[in-house]
Structures are given as C-alpha cells and as structure tokens.
C-alpha cells in the first residue's frame, strides 16, 4: 500500500515546552477521502490536527505531505505547500466583507483568483448574495461557510477543519456536512475534527477515535459506527 497523501505519523508532542499531549498518534487522509477525528473531550483531537498543521512541537514522529517531510515547516509555509486550515473559532475577518475575506484567503496567490472566487460562490451560493456584507454580521452557519470558503481560496491540496459545526443548530449542521461532502467531491481530501461523532462518522471514509492523545480505534466510518466497543464508549450505545 502506498503512503496516504497527508500523514501525521506516530506524532508525540505538546505546546511549546509543555508536557506531551499526543503520544504516538497517527492521522492520515488520502486523495478523495473525508477523514474524521472523534473522541471524548480532552482526548487531543484538535491538538492532533494542529500538530499536523505545525502549530505545536512534534518531538517524535513526522508529518509528510505527498511524500515530502514537512515536520519542520511553519504553518504559513504549510499553507504555501497546499494545506488549507479552518480554525475552530475566530476563523473569519469579522469587520471585512465576505468578498474581502475570500480575497484575503487568496493573498498568497500571485495569479488571477477570480475563477476560484466563482467556484466558492457556486459552492456556497448564499455568500454570493451577501458578498458586500461584513462577515461578522452573518449567522453562525454562514460564517462557517465564509471560513471554509476563505481556506478554499488558496486552492488547497488538502483541507483541514477544526470542529466546523461547533455551536450551530442541528439543521445548520446537516447543511454544513452536505457542503463539506460537496467540497470533497471537487477532489480535495478533507481532514476534520468533530464533536458530533455519529453524524461525522456517517460521512467519513476514514475515522480515528482518539483517547488521551493516542489512537484507540481506527477504520472506515461505517466500521467504526458498527463496532460495539466504539458504540459503547463514545456513541452512547
């Protein structure tokens, strides 16, 4: 089996010089896939994703993108390498218009990004209607769309979402998941962290259950949903 497109391999590390939070944790996503990280509170889900994105010290293990070792790169450099990241909170420029948010997403691109802008608007039609409005004035679900749209503007080779549905209503959550599947269909691999484990695993090609910074279970989304141990411990039976 060839190596996945993006892999955080046996990562051990923590924030700054602080204690290790991850202990030999492995996360990966391959082309055309949606990979989901789930687990109880404090399991290190977001931390694992941030480790892949270079926001904490990975003391052991490695992160590789398309076979290239990027463990030592800064988050900014990883963006240039083609990784798109949507933070959990404060993921938009609230005082700027929707269109300006998307333009800022394309800041590092020297080429013409109008095509990408149109693609994002096609993907999130509501943003086209509100493109002159300040992003901070939008509803929670719409803001998340701005946030994802901003990350898509770099034409990333892989998209990472940190709890995209945190704090939105169930209806909005379903819509967001639909949008995420659509993004995935355009050929972008997606790695995301989710609180709503059941719904997330339903759309996942690959799932990781983390406990205390280490892999507890992994498999396809369906397998995990069917696994009695996973059901019992994390999905409430």
């Amino acid at each position, binding site marked *: 089996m060839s190596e996945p497109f993006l892999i955080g391999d046996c990562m051990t590390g923590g924030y700054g010089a602080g204690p290790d939070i991850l202990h030999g944790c492995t996360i990966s996503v391959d082309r055309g896939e949606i990979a989901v990280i789930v687990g109880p509170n404090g399991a290190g889900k977001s931390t694992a994703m941030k480790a892949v994105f270079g926001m904490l010290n990975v003391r052991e293990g490695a992160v590789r993108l398309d076979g290239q070792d990027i463990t030592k790169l800064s988050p900014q450099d990883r963006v240039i390498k083609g990784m798109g990241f949507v933070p959990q909170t404060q993921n938009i420029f609230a005082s700027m218009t929707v269109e*300006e948010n998307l333009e*800022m997403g394309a*800041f590092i691109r020297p080429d013409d990004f109008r095509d990408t802008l149109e693609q994002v608007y096609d993907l999130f039609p509501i943003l086209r209607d509100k493109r002159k409005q300040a992003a901070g004035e939008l509803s929670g679900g719409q803001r998340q769309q701005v946030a994802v749209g901003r990350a898509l503007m770099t034409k990333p080779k892989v998209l990472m979402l940190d709890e995209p549905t945190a704090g939105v209503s169930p209806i909005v959550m379903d819509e967001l998941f639909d949008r995420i599947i659509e993004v995935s269909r355009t050929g972008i691999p997606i790695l995301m962290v989710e609180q709503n484990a059941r719904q997330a695993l339903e759309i996942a090609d690959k799932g990781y259950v983390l406990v205390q910074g280490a892999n507890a279970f992994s498999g396809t989304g369906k397998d995990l949903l069917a696994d009695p141990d996973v059901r019992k411990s994390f999905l409430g039976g």
Partner: protein
Amino acid sequence: MDFLNAIVALSNFVLVPAIAYGSQLALGALGVTLIYGILRFSNFAHGDTMAFGAMATVGMTWWLQSMGVNLGPLPTALLALPFGIMAAGFLVLMTDRMVYRFYRQQKSKPVILVIVSMGVMFITNGIVRFIIGPQERQFADGERFLISARDFKQMTGLDEGLAIKTTQAITVITAIIIVALLFWFLNKTRTGKSMRAYSDNEDLALLSGINPERVVMVTWLIVAALATIAGTLYGLDKTFKPFTYFQLLLPIFASAIVGGLGSPVGAIAGGFVVAFSEVTITYAWKKVLGYAMPDSLAPDGLVQLLSTDYKFAVSFVILVIVLLFKPTGLFNGKAY
C-alpha cells in the same frame, strides 16, 4: 442684519478655527488609531513623531526659502513636506527596527510597549530640541489670508468680518485629500486590505500568508506621513514649537478614543468632536450673543464657559465621559 452678523462672527471665531483644528486632530488621531489597530498599543511617541516630521519640514522650508524657491501665494512648506515625510519615515522605521520589533517578537504585553513608547517619546523629543531648539519657530510664508476680515466687510457691508487664513484652507483641503487617499488605500488595495485583515484577526492573517513585518512597515510609513502632515499643518496654522506637540497628545488620544480606538472613521469623527467642543467651550460668546439676542438681553460678561488655559480639560472631560459610558467609542473600537 444682526442675525447675519451673528452668523459671520460665529463662523469667524468658532466654525472656521474649529474645522481647521479638527482636521489637524483627525490626522493625528488617525496615526494613533492605525498604530493601535496594527501594533496594538497606544503610541505615546506620536506627538513627538509629529514634531520630528514638522521639524524636518521646517528645516527644508528654510533651505528652500534661502534658495529663493517658493510657491507664490502658497506656503513653501508644502514643497518641503515630502522631505519631512521621508525623514519621519526613516525615524519611525529605525525605531521600529531598534526598539519595537524586539517586544513584538517577544509578544510583550501592550503596557510594556506603552512604556517603551514613552522612552521613545523622550528620545525623539530630545533629538528635536537638540536639532532645532525648544523655541517657537516661524516658517509660514505666502499669502496670509484667503479672505481678510476687511475685504469681507467691504464685500458684504456687514459689521463683522470673516477671515479665512490660507493655512486654514490648506489644512482642510489637505486633510480631505489625505483622508480620501488613506481610505482608498485601506479599502481598495491589496496591501491596505491586508492591513485591515491583520488588524481584525492577527492569527488568521498569518494563516492567510500575510507577512506581518510588511504590514507593520507599511503602517509605520503611513503613520509617519500622517504625523508629518498633521504636525506641519498645525505648525503653519499656529507656530512650530516642540513642546506643543507633547501637549497635543491628550486631545489626539481623546479623539481616537471618542471615535473608538482602531477605527479610522472614528478617529476623524473624534477629531471634530474634540475640536468643536474645545473651541465652543473656550470661546467668549459675548459678540455672537450680542448680535443674536435683543439688546435688552445682551450679556454683560464675556460668556466664556472656560478660560482657554483649560482647553485640555475639555479633551479630558470628553475622554472621561466616553470611558464611563461607552469605552468602545462611537464607532466600536477595541476597549479591552
């Protein structure tokens, strides 16, 4: 007739000076608010940056004057302004390099940066006094009045004259041009938008590949230009004296806070709020009221609410009211 005289007197003593002063404060407050938005601290050295830029302009003006160069009816200082801006730009970039950058990289608390800026303030102040001395300096030339009081009286036949100094007209026109340019830059250009993005959400701006050092550099250069222009206009309108720029710090901060720290529109609104309050409260209304009211009600005293010695108290009271009731200012800046 009396009513017209009242309006003319009001324009002459209140409206025109307040608009000119308001423009100067607005330009100063824009500089403070930009630094606050991007570098996230209150820059106490701003008044002295103004003094430095104005001093360089004054020096250049003198040189041009000695070479016989002038702009006819306009003050020569306008010609010297680009030089002053360059000098101030050099100064602020040097200070950023040698002083502020270290604390930025350390991610020091804003209050440390404020103290550091106080140190920079005294050094800049020392340099300015060292070079040009602490006295008042004249550098205005050209036509003194756009309309003099006597001409106005002859033209209209009113008892009251309306004088508009050339410097006042230039102040307002320059301020309008500069503000239009600044807003165009912030809202329409890629670099300007990246500055707003950085001010709005630093982490996300970094994720978007915006280079913070470049944003900071552009900000300093804009601030240097704003400070030099504000300082020179103030000097032309009144006179150039290093210490007055330190005293301008309070009204400038009051303007920026009234408008909402970090909000450019707020800085302009705040500048005019402070200027109009200061001028109306320290103006002796006897003349205007004398015309506006029937003779029997005409006031005996000067009807001056507060002596001009206390003009700083006006800025201060406005500041206190804003802090008590709406710390985010009129345009929702950052209060915490």
